[in-house]
């Protein structure tokens, strides 16, 4: 069992708003192993982006990291000084974001901005430029020399994102965090970027943390996945297992509500009822219980913890799909309504 390069323990990030305290990341713990591609998947309010921002201490005001440890090579990133964490950012751990348009400075040439990432960490101008050109080629930007001189608005969305990836990789970081990097791009461009990331992961051994809401992206790129809901990890494990045999009702429901382009005939989508959880007033007990078809009485009062449900697979659920299949007829379930299968207060939202 290799040692993880990143260990997140009990991370908690909160926002103080007008209406109260919102705990965007609520006790998240996970490991990242060298060279692996880890997916963090979830919908709005799941806390996936905020987890990534917390790791690099980029949480925007009025948010604060109030608890936890982020161990990178035995250093707790949350305890470092401002100077020290700035050293780490961009050099050891890099991050790319969703919208390359706003991440790139429109009045500076693209090549220069990639150079900057290296200049900030000690390289000389000549070294930086040479490396930038090399990187631009590596991320498959054609005509790299002329693109180097272009301004961001002269590049297409896909190329801007490639430039961002080049910037991220410029100092050969151990970890690249990608926060929804392809969401704003066209499908064909998205596929190319994902292929690029997969190739880079294989060639360079850079670990990739891929944050996305798209299960298809996870299926193609990641070897392990964390499923987040309402600020917590509800399930984690190897991708094949999670897709084949999800144990948490949220994961299971989510997979069944996605239309498939390769579906052979029209089946009504099994949608999860209800709306995203209100982080100001999180439900008591299990946060998913207001929408869960398999809930039992315990789910209303006690919060489940992550437990082993398969080889290297963990889920936070009192029931789990295994039991739901055996005892509640989960496979035959037509609609994902709260309490529908378990019979516990069916139809009530809370």
């Amino acid at each position, binding site marked *: 069992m290799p040692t993880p390069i990143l260990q997140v323990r009990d991370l908690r990030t909160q926002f103080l708003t007008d209406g109260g305290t919102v705990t965007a990341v609520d006790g998240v713990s996970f490991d990242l192993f060298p060279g692996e591609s880890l997916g963090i998947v979830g919908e709005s309010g799941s806390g996936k982006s905020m987890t990534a921002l917390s790791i690099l201490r980029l949480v925007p005001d009025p948010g604060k990291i109030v608890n936890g440890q982020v161990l990178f090579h035995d250093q707790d990133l949350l305890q470092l000084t401002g100077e020290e964490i700035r050293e780490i950012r961009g050099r050891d751990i890099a991050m790319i974001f969703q919208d390359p348009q706003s991440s790139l400075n429109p009045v500076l040439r693209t090549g220069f901005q990639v150079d900057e990432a290296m200049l900030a960490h000690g390289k000389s101008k000549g070294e930086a430029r040479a490396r930038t050109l090399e990187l631009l080629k590596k991320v498959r930007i054609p005509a790299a020399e002329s693109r180097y001189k272009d301004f961001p608005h002269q590049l297409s969305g896909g190329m801007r994102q490639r430039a961002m990836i080049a910037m991220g990789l410029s100092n050969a970081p151990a970890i690249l965090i990608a926060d929804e990097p392809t969401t704003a791009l066209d499908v064909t461009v998205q596929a190319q970027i994902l292929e690029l990331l997969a190739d880079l992961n294989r060639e360079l051994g850079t670990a990739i943390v891929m944050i996305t809401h798209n299960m298809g992206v996870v299926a193609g790129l990641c070897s392990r996945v964390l499923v987040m809901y309402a600020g917590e990890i509800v399930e984690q494990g190897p991708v094949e297992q999670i897709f084949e045999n999800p144990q948490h009702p949220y994961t299971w429901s989510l997979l069944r509500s996605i239309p498939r382009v390769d579906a052979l005939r029209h089946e009504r989508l099994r949608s999860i009822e209800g709306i995203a959880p209100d982080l100001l007033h999180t439900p008591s007990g299990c946060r998913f219980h207001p929408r869960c078809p398999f809930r039992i009485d315990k789910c209303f009062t006690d919060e489940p913890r992550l437990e082993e449900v398969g080889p290297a697979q963990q889920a936070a659920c009192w029931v789990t799909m295994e039991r739901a299949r055996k005892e509640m007829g989960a496979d035959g379930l037509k609609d994902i309504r709260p309490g529908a299968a378990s019979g516990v207060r069916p*139809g009530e939202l809370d």
Partner: protein
Amino acid sequence: MAVTAAAVVVRPITPVQASLWSDAWRRLRRNRLALAGAVFLVFLTGVALVAFVYTPYPMAAVAVAAPYSGPSAAHWFGADVIGRDVLSRVMVGAQISLTVGVGTQLVVLAIGVPVGLIAGYFGGWIDSIVSFAVNVFYGVPDLLVALLLVVLLGHPGLDKIIIAISVTRWMDMTRLVRGQTLALREREFVEAARASGARPIKILFGHILPNALGPVIVQATFGVPAAILFEAFLSFLGLGVPPPQPSWGSMAADGLSAIRIAPHMVIAPSIALSLTLMSFNFLGDGLRDALDPRSRR
């Protein structure tokens, strides 16, 4: 799931009905300076209204006190150069200032809002004409326009002054409303209104104007003290309300020559003017912060 089974998707995300106006009101209430300003203005309006039926002495009554006499029990603000009670005159002066201030803004709104809406929404040649007019008026110095108007409209009087000031101020409002309209016109809910068959009038007054009201109200609130000051200035120059009407500006002018021996003649109306201007400005600031949808504290 039957379409009509409403049982499941039920809750909105806030438990309390909250319009954007009540939210703004709540924010405004928290702003101490704005509240203080509002309180003073309410008081001032009260004084102005009271002055219609009662002032300690008639404002034109001459020699009710010794000329130049300072504040005393009988005359809280003293007397002016011909023995008129300054307090009474300041009270009536409040009427004048408020009438001019609010009056000009009403005229400015009446012109600026419809013109701005139409120019912004329809664009084209209408917009070109309006923009041209706006630029022309901006080109002429305020004072000159006001002077010309006052002279041309004959006998000076409150209404003439209101018109004169409005003519120099309508452009700001027009530009503001036009800009708001241009921005709002592209918003998706306006497109949706068109798609659902709304006529242009309905769109302008039912969708665009309500969403532009915030900045418009703030602008009008700031416009009041500007107009009051302008009037005070005109009166100071002798071009404002005719005597014996006591504009704060003319009172200050009258008292200027005697400022060494009877400073109260200048101080009283000046303080009244300053407090009034400050109050409107604080209120305007508060309104701007309260109505700004982005500052969600």
